[in-house]
């Protein structure tokens, strides 16, 4: 039992290494954005170790930079990160039913797009030790990247900062585009979402709708488009398979 636990942990550690490296680069860019929005290095680091969510943190940094409320911040996290709800539902089927509540609470901390991806790729039931292994390498990569980005971001030449600014968006594209090759619905959804996002931004600027903040735009577009898509194109059961390709 003890050695089995160790094997699972090491496997999680091994599979987590590329995730940790990818997180480091992306978090570095995030740290730069955070310090640009006025957060201190220690605040950015705290945010990363407590939240571990690229999209959520990026949105929060945007909101904090221009001024926001606690309610808007909480609601933005709810909408942007609601996907973790579905992932955790799938994950609850993947772990053994007898897994203790404490283990479930610890695994929950590490539910990210990427860790979820590798976890669902494991054969058979998932051991909590696998998640701990992945978390043990992915979270330090994420946190350290944020810290160094926040500290070194101001020292780096402007051109390097400019270059790192696209890392986060490139990562998002790398998550959403591969499944679009297999699914016309997802491909169409991505195009429609991007066009709607650009359209709404133009509208907001054209008519100076200052109350329509970035977080609010994300919420409105996400709920509306996802709901329409869910009604028009309900997913079949292989939907979860496609989700796995997002890793």
């Amino acid at each position, binding site marked *: 039992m003890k050695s089995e636990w160790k094997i699972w942990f090491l496997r999680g550690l091994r599979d987590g290494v*590329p995730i940790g490296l*990818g997180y480091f680069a992306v978090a570095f860019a995030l740290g730069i954005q955070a310090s640009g929005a006025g957060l*201190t290095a220690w605040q950015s680091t705290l945010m990363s170790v*407590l*939240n571990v*969510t690229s999209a*959520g943190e990026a*949105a*929060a940094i945007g909101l904090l930079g221009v*001024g*926001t*409320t*606690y309610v808007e*911040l909480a609601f933005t*996290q709810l909408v*942007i*990160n*609601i*996907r*973790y709800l579905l*992932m*955790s*539902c799938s*994950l609850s*089927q993947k*772990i053994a039913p007898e897994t203790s*509540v404490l283990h*479930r*609470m610890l695994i*929950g901390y590490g*539910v990210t797009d990427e860790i979820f991806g590798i976890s669902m790729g494991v054969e058979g039931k998932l051991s909590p030790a696998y998640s701990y292994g992945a978390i043990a390498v992915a979270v330090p990569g994420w946190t350290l990247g944020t810290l160094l980005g926040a500290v070194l971001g101001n020292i780096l030449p402007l*051109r390097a900062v*400019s*270059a*790192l600014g*696209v*890392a986060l*968006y*490139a*990562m*998002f*594209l*790398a*998550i*959403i585009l*591969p499944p*679009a090759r297999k699914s016309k619905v997802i491909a169409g959804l991505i195009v429609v*979402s*991007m066009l*709607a*996002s650009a359209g709404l*931004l133009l509208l907001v600027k054209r008519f100076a709708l200052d109350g329509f903040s970035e977080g609010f735009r*994300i919420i409105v577009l*996400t709920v509306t*488009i996802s*709901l329409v*898509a*869910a*009604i028009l194109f309900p*997913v079949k059961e292989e939907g979860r398979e496609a989700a796995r390709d997002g890793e």
Partner: protein
Amino acid sequence: MVNNIVLAIVVMALVTYLIRVTPLVLIRREIKNRTVRSFLYYVPYVTLSVMTFPAILSATAVLWSALAALVVAVVLSLCRCKLPVVALAACVTVFAVETLLF
């Protein structure tokens, strides 16, 4: 208004953690409602698309480097390149284009 950044960070962390942990602790059966399942399934694609575009166009010093990075990231993602590769290639593209321009 947010006047305490640390409190704001704790609030968002709490929301995100509850989203992640609640299904794991409470639900042991899969969601059966097809519309809810479908909605939750589409959410990440829509959210990440909306966040990426057009924001990526203003993420760099000039529009052209961002456009080039967007094209490179899209092509590499469609070719199923690994996530760190796509991120790095996009950064290198911006750096190269801006070096050429300035």
